[in-house]
C-alpha cells in the first residue's frame, strides 16, 4: 500500500489536531447523562459499531488512533481497519456527546479517514460498487431508470418546477421516489402540501441525486461534482424554498451545499413545514390515530440538523396517538444502522442495529415506531419482527383524511 503525501490538503492533515487531542475519555461511547434519561443500562450505548464489536477501533476514540497511525506511517490498510471504518454509520452520536465537553469533533476524523481511504484507492468497498455504478449509469443509487423518478406523481397535478415557477421546490430524493415501498408515502407527503395550499412543484425525472451517500462514503470528488450540478439547477429555478422529506438530502442541501455556494433559497425539511401548517390551521388532524407510538430521530435530521421538536409537535397534534419517548432519543438517539453506506456493505449489521432499536421501543411500551427518514424506514421495516414502522407523513395524512391509516 502506498503511503499518502502529507500535503496541507490531505484530509487527515485537516483533522490531525483532533486525532492527537483526543483525551480517550470514552464520552463518545455513551449517551449524555441527562437527569432521568440514563435509567436503563441496556440503552446507554450511542455508537452502534462500537457496541457491536467492542474493540476501541470501532469507536470514535479508536478512529483517532487509526488516524494517528496513518499519519505517522505506523499503520497500513487492512481488512479490519476498513471494516472498523466502514461499519461506522456516521450517525454523529460521538460528535453529539463529545463536543459539548471537549470542543472536539471526533466525527470529522472519521469523515477524513474515509476521504483518505478513497484517495488511497482502498475505498469505496467492493460492496459499494453497485451503488457507485448505479449513480454513474442512472444518476441514483437504486439502479432505477431516471424516468421512474417521476412515476409516483402521475395524475397528482403537481407543477413542473422547471416550467411552472412554483414558490417551493419539493425535492423528493432518490429513495422516496424510487423505492416502490415508499412512493405511497411520497404521494401522501405531496398530498398534504396540496391540501394545505402550498405552491410547489417537482423536478420529476430531471431531479438529480443530492450526493449524500457518496459524501458519507468518502468520495468527496464525486460528491462535489454532483453537488455543483445540483446547485446550478436549484439556483436556476428561482424558488424561494426547497423542501424535502428525506433526512439525508436535507442535511446535505441545508448543511453541506452552502459550504460550496451560499444558496438563494431556504432549505426546510417537510416535518418543519408540516408542523407549521398544522400550527397555522392549514392542516387539521381530526381523525383518530389510536396507537402507542415512539419517534425514532433520524441522525441526519436530529443530530446533524437539530430538528427534534417539529416531528414531535406533529405527533402531539394527532388525536388518539400516545407518544412515548425512548431513553435514547433526540441527541441521544440510537442510529437505525443504515447510514453512510453501511446497509449497502454490511446489511447484517444494519439489521442488528435496527433490531436493537425495536427492542428499545418495545421495552418502552411502544407498539409503533415512527420515523421521518426513508433510509431509517427502509432499514427498520426490513428488520422488523412484528413491530409496525410508520412514516410520520402517513400518520398525519390519515388524520387529515388523505387515506392511508
Amino acid at each position, binding site marked *: 500500500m502506498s503511503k499518502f503525501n502529507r500535503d496541507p490538503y490531505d484530509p487527515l492533515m485537516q483533522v*490531525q*489536531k483532533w*486525532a*492527537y*487531542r*483526543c*483525551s*480517550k*475519555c*470514552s*464520552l463518545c*461511547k*455513551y449517551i*449524555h*447523562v*441527562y*437527569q432521568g434519561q*440514563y*435509567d436503563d*443500562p441496556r440503552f*446507554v450505548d450511542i455508537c452502534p459499531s462500537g457496541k457491536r464489536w*467492542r*474493540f*476501541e*477501533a470501532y469507536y470514535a*476514540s*479508536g478512529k483517532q*488512533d*487509526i488516524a*494517528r*497511525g496513518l499519519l505517522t506511517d*505506523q*499503520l*497500513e490498510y*487492512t481488512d*479490519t*481497519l476498513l471494516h*472498523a471504518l466502514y461499519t461506522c454509520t456516521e450517525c454523529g452520536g460521538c460528535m453529539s456527546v463529545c*463536543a*459539548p*465537553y*471537549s*470542543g*472536539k469533533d471526533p466525527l470529522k476524523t472519521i469523515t477524513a479517514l474515509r476521504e483518505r481511504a478513497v484517495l488511497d484507492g482502498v475505498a469505496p468497498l467492493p460492496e459499494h460498487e453497485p451503488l457507485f455504478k448505479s449513480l454513474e449509469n442512472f444518476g441514483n443509487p437504486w439502479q432505477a431508470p431516471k424516468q421512474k423518478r417521476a412515476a409516483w406523481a402521475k395524475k397528482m397535478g403537481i407543477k413542473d418546477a422547471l416550467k411552472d415557477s412554483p414558490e417551493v421546490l419539493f425535492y423528493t430524493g432518490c429513495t422516496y421516489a424510487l423505492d416502490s415501498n415508499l412512493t405511497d408515502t411520497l404521494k401522501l407527503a405531496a398530498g398534504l402540501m396540496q391540501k394545505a395550499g402550498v405552491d410547489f412543484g417537482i423536478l420529476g425525472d430531471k431531479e438529480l441525486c443530492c450526493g449524500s451517500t457518496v459524501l458519507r462514503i468518502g468520495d468527496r470528488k464525486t460528491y462535489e461534482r454532483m453537488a455543483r450540478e445540483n446547485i446550478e439547477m436549484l439556483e436556476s429555478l428561482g424558488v424561494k424554498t426547497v423542501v424535502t422529506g428525506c433526512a439525508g438530502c436535507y442535511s446535505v442541501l441545508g448543511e453541506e451545499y452552502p459550504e460550496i455556494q451560499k444558496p438563494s433559497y431556504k432549505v426546510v425539511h417537510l416535518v418543519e413545514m408540516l408542523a407549521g401548517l398544522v400550527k397555522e390551521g392549514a392542516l387539521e388532524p381530526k381523525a383518530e390515530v389510536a396507537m402507542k407510538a415512539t419517534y425514532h430521530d433520524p441522525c441526519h435530521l436530529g443530530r446533524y440538523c437539530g430538528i427534534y421538536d417539529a416531528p414531535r409537535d406533529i405527533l402531539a397534534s394527532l388525536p388518539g396517538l400516545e407518544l412515548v419517548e425512548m431513553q435514547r432519543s433526540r441527541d441521544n438517539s440510537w442510529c437505525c444502522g443504515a447510514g453512510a453506506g453501511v446497509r449497502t456493505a454490511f446489511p447484517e449489521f444494519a439489521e442488528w442495529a435496527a433490531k436493537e432499536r425495536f427492542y428499545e421501543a418495545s421495552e418502552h411500551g411502544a407498539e409503533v415506531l415512527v420515523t421521518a427518514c426513508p433510509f431509517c424506514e427502509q432499514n427498520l421495516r426490513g428488520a422488523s419482527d412484528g413491530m409496525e414502522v410508520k412514516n410520520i407523513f402517513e400518520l398525519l395524512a390519515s388524520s387529515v383524511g388523505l387515506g392511508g391509516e
Partner: protein
Amino acid sequence: MAVRSYDPTVQETVEQVMGLLQEVVGEEWISNDPAILIGYSKDNSFETAKKPHVVVLPENTGQVQEIVRIAGRFGMAVTPASTAINCAGGCIPQRGGILLDLRRMDRILEIDAENMTITIEPAVRFGVAQNQLKRQGLYAVNPSGPHTAGVATNHMDKGIGMPANKYGVGPDHIVSMTFVMPDGEIVKTGSGALPGAEKVCVEGPGPDMSGLFHSSMGIFGVMTEMTTQVYEWPKVEVLKVATFESEDLNPVTEFFYDITREDFVNECSHLQDAYFSWFATEDSEVAASIVDYIPRNDAIVILGGENEEEARLKEEQFLRLVERNGYELMDDGTVDMLSEMIGDIAYECKVLQSTMRVTRFYGSFQVVWFNSSLDRVSDLHKKYQRLADKHFRDNDWRNWDKPFPPTEVTVYTQPLEFGRSVMLELDFFISFDDSESVKRGLAFGYDAINMVLDDGGMFDRPYGGHGSFNFGTLQTPRLGTYAELLAELKRDIDPRNIMAPGRLNLPVSQT
C-alpha cells in the same frame, strides 16, 4: 508443562498464544490486527505509545483465569484495562503482550440496599451504577470523574480525590475484591477471603492484605469483581459558593480546615476563577467573557440532609464558617446561573461532573496531582506559578489554541481524609499535536514533580496522577526499603513478571 520464554518479536509465539486464547473467548473477541492494537497504545498522558501484541475481551472471571494461565505458560505480559480511560498510562502495555480489555465485564451483580453495598464487575461505569443505585436512594461516591469512569478501578487505584474528607480516599469504600492472581488462582480480599463470611467486615483475616492491591494497577493480578460501600442519597441538597477575592491562598486553607474539622458537607472543593468559567461554559470565548465576573477563589460546597431542617442547620453552620474566615457568599442568582450553565451535564457529582470540559483547552489537560498538607498549599502554588512563568511565559489561554499563562495557572483543592490532609492539583495544558509544547510540558512536569517531592508532597499512586508521566521514576528512588519490599513481594507473587510489567517503576524486578 515446560516453561517457554517469550520473545515478543516471534510472531509464531503470538499466533500460538492467539490460538489458545481463541479457544477461551472465541474468535470474535480477540485480535492482533494493527488497527485494533493501536487503539490501546496511547492515552492522554506523556507515556510513550506502546502497542500490545494481542487484545482479548473476556466475558467472565473464568475466562480471565484461563487467559492469565496461558500468558503465564508463555511468560507473556498481561495488561488489564477496565474502561480503558486511564489518563496516566495505566492501560498502556509497556511490554506489549496481551491487553486484557475487560469492557465486556460490565455487569452489576448485586445491589444490597440493606448493607449499603454494590457488587460489580470491573467495567461498570459510574453513569450506570449511579442510576441503578439512585432507584434505591443510594449513590456511589464519584471522585469527579466522568460518567464513563469505572467505579471499581477508580476506587481501587485511587481515582481523583473524593469530594469531601468524610469519604476518605477510593480504597476506603472497598468491602472486598476478587483477584485473578498471576498463577490463575483466585484470591478474595476482606472478610470474603473466608467462604461464607462475605460482607461481615471490610478487614480480612489479619494481617489484612487488601492494601497490597490498592493503587497496584494490576501488577499483582486482575481484579474481576468488587463489593464497595454506597451511601444514602440526601433528600435535600443545597449548593453554596463562598468566595474570596485574593491571590493569597492561606485563607482558603484555613476555611477548608474548619470544614474538615466540622465534617458536615457532602462535597467540597476549591476552584479558581478560570476553572470555574471553563466548567460553566461550552465555549472558550464565553468562558473568557465571564471569568472576570467570577471571584478569584471559590469554595464550592454541597450540603445535604434528610430534610429541609437538617439542610438549613448545615447551611447556618456553613455561613458561620464563611463569616469567621472572611469569605463572602456568592449571591444565589449567580450560583443559579452557573448551576444552570453546568446543569445539563452535572449529574453524579454536581459541579465537578463537568471536569471533562477542561480538555477542550489546547487538547490535553495535564495535572500534577498529589497529597499534601493545607499548610503548604499557598507556598506550593506560588512556586508552581514561578515554574509556569519559566516554562509557559508566552501563552494566552483566551486564545483557545494556547495553553494558559502562568498568571492563570490554577490550583484545585479538596480536603482529604483527616485534619490538614489535602489533595492538590496544579494544572497545565499541552497539545500532543505540537511537539514543542510536549517538550515544554515534560520539562515543566519534571520540575514541578521534583518541587512537590522536595516540599513534602506525596504521589499516592506511584505511577503518577491524571495526565502525568511516570512520576514513579522520580518518587520511587526516594522510597528506599519500602520500594525494595514491594519489589520482593512482586517477585514472590508474580515470579515471571507477567502482570503489568514496568507499571510501578519498582526496583530490580521491574526493570
